[in-house]
């Protein structure tokens, strides 16, 4: 997964991929594929993912802007704006050779100065995850227009998984330099180098893009007009797909029951490929600030009371897989169950652990009371909370389930710390150092910050393993560090992993080739085409 390998210089040239433009899509284009309409959810604040990591931004930004790299299956880095790259032996210098002849949509040439500006002055400053991704980058040298040299204080293997257009888009320096970057009008009418050019945006309603005829990847894109329509209601998105008003719904933005229906409906395709870059997990945090959750036997007992397989099959209707540890099953390079404590459902063991921890059943049959706070983000977290309530009651815990709207939830958990156990959905990141570490790292216990270390878990052992893994450039050693971390995290269980999300793209069958390696919905749609 990581392209960083020590003790030898390595040059990854990707010219072959860019030369071999297959003739087939050209043919499809000749058959006519005028407009592709996407019915989608959250409305973006900007149309530019460099300024916000929100889902709305992520979905559209990469269509208009390119990144240095893109990722193939298994998260293998592939050239986009960078044609080749080279990592020094010590991992402290990364040199990118840029693609020549690339033009911004306004006709200016793309140069290494744009790379320096985008990373140093935008991504490092304004991008939520960019601060961490590029934390070790102190300087970017631009010896010539087509060479960008990243200077690092410490190796940053995770950085190499975060250089795609959705995560780290390249911005035109000539448009942004000397302006208030967050207020620049280009944030709402982007000028990129990407396959689609911005046409118009009615805030919260419709975003229209058109084919960039001068795209560097000759012959692409294959769609003339790309339209994003913002629709608040999932059932409406489903109906639009069914009547052909929309061609594609990505990132499982339909009610689960509708996804199941489309799976068996003629003329539609439900595809789970291309979400490697954005794996998400449904988790439950224990509030370790409260005394009864400080004893790890109590936390383990609750984990033993939950049947993750049942949850995956009955709450998520099989559109998710049972959780076994802090890393997502799609983080294939590091995910493991070997040596990681498992919690297959065992109510007797759960009761025994609770007795042992000093919480015997009282005269009324209850050991203690608790509330499970679920976030109202889709149907599933509240349903999962209801399931857990019943399971915990089986082992003598008087549990209640409570549903909070998003803003109230964030305040309750991260600002007020007024909860026992929560149920929510969060990204595991393209790399564990970006997505997973934040939930366990003691330095990420931050009041008021959503999806930081909400449980308040602080373990020297876990901290040390996470910090070592974040800068380890040897893939095998890094894998071992994450394996050890997974074992520690599951022994302590400050966080219960319910299920791993398996996101789906739902299209009508005439929509083809929207999956590009590790990216589909969040990719650039340069290859997508519609059969007549």
């Amino acid at each position, binding site marked *: 997964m990581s392209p960083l390998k020590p003790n030898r210089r390595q040059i990854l040239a990707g010219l072959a991929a860019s030369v071999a433009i297959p003739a087939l899509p050209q043919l499809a284009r000749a058959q006519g594929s005028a407009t592709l309409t996407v019915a989608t959810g959250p*409305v973006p*604040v900007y149309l530019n993912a460099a300024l916000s990591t929100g889902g709305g931004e992520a979905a559209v930004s990469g269509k208009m802007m390119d990144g240095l790299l893109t990722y193939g299956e298994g998260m293998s880095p592939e050239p986009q704006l960078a044609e080749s790259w080279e990592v020094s032996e010590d991992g402290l210098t990364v040199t990118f050779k840029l693609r020549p002849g690339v033009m911004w949509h306004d006709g200016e040439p793309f140069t290494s100065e744009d790379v320096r500006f985008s990373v140093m002055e935008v991504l490092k400053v304004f991008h939520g995850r960019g601060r961490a991704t590029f934390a070790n980058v102190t300087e970017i040298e631009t010896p010539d227009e087509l060479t960008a040299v990243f200077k690092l204080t410490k190796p940053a293997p995770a950085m190499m998984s975060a250089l795609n257009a959705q995560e780290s888009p390249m911005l035109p320096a000539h448009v942004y330099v000397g302006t208030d970057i967050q207020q620049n009008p280009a944030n*709402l009418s982007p000028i990129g180098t990407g396959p689609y050019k911005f046409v118009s945006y009615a805030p*919260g309603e419709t975003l229209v893009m058109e084919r960039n005829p001068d795209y560097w990847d000759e012959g692409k894109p294959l769609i003339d007009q790309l339209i994003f329509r913002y629709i608040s209601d999932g059932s409406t998105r489903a109906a639009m797909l069914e009547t052909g008003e929309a061609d594609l719904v990505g990132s499982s933005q339909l009610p689960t029951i509708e996804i199941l229906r489309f799976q068996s409906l003629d003329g539609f395709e439900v595809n789970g490929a291309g979400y490697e870059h954005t794996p998400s997990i449904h988790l439950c945090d224990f509030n370790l600030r409260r005394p009864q959750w400080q004893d790890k036997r109590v936390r383990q007992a609750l984990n033993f009371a939950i049947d993750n397989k049942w949850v995956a099959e009955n709450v998520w209707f099989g559109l998710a897989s049972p959780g076994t540890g802090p890393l997502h099953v799609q983080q294939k390079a590091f995910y493991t169950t070997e040596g990681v404590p498992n919690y297959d459902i065992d109510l007797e063991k759960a009761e025994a652990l609770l007795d042992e921890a000093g919480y015997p059943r009282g005269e009324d049959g209850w050991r203690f009371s608790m509330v499970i706070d679920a976030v109202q983000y889709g149907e599933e977290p509240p349903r999962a909370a209801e399931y857990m309530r019943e399971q915990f009651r089986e082992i003598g815990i008087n549990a209640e389930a409570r549903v909070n709207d*998003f803003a109230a939830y*964030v305040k309750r958990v991260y600002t007020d710390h007024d909860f026992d156990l929560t149920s929510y959905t969060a990204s595991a990141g393209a790399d564990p150092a970006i997505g997973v570490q934040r939930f366990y790292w003691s330095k990420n216990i931050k009041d*008021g910050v959503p999806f930081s270390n909400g449980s308040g878990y602080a373990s020297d052992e876990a901290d040390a393993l996470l910090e070592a893994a974040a800068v380890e450039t040897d893939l095998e050693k890094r894998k071992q560090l994450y394996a050890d971390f997974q074992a520690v995290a599951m022994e302590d269980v400050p966080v219960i992993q319910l299920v791993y999300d398996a996101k789906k793209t739902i299209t009508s069958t005439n929509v083809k080739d929207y999956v590009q390696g590790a990216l589909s919905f969040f990719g650039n749609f340069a290859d997508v085409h519609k059969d007549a």
Partner: protein
Amino acid sequence: MSLTETSARRAPVARLALPPWARFLLGRLGQALLVMALVVIGNFVIMQMAPGDLVTVIAGGADMTQEQMADLRARFGLDLPLLVQFWNYVAQLLTFDLGYSYRMNAPVWEVLSARLPTTAALVVLSLLFSVTIGTVMGVVSARRAGTLTDMGINAVALVLYAAPSFVVAMLLVLVFSVKLGWFPIAGLTTVSAGYTGWALVKDMAAHLVMPVTALCTFYVAIYARLARSTMLEVMDQDYVRTARAKGLSETRVIYVHTLRNALLPIVTMAGLQVSTVLGGAVVVETVFGLPGMARTAYDAVFQRDTTMLLGVMFVSSLAIVIVNLAVDLLYTVLDPRVSLK
């Protein structure tokens, strides 16, 4: 309050010798201003009571650090004391500025003025259709009281009354879009087609048929029941009997003498409908993905977009106050017994 006191206190106005209708209008405008002031204060207080703010919502979808969140709060003015925030808001309103929505990244008025026509069209069309269809049903029902027609109309009205608008909306989508393919589901226009002129009007009309229907059904039932009972009541009045005794034709008796008086409660109801229909529009605009004001309110609630929500509430309160004023004026036209005081 005695008459003398009133005229003494209103002396300056009386000296201007304003005609009664102007004095009435001035008085009602004063009331309207007071109502709007209360609405503004009430809205602001309610907004502040909801847990969580815009920044927590934005940050929740976009991993942020404490510093970035603090920066945002400062940028949006959310870190200021409440009274200062309130004063800034009022000061903005006084210059007819509804503020800037950081969630939509656009001035509130820009968003609302683009969306107001959709909601207005929805409200006006549904008002028009529900009053007309409902009243006709009610009048027919009243004239044929006790017959099969009457019972049939009553049964239909009962079903329409009982069906919630979201159920009606979903059923319409299922039958007329998914199964029959007659009407488009979402939005106000076919974005990709780029229609202009007459084609655009037709396209918009096709997009509005189902939403207006979904919004109408409940009120059609209300007007039908209301028209039927008031018609029956008025038909028993002495002046109707007099009209009949004069030998006027039945049609004239019904439509001139009876209906005109029976319209009063319908006008009252129509005034109320304007205020309640906005609630129904939230559902309808959401289901049909219409770019309207009501759906903007719905989205703003979940995104804690306070400025946007305050803007929606201000504009809709204003609309309701104006409609109420219009209803009062319409009363005097319909019924000479109601005078301007």
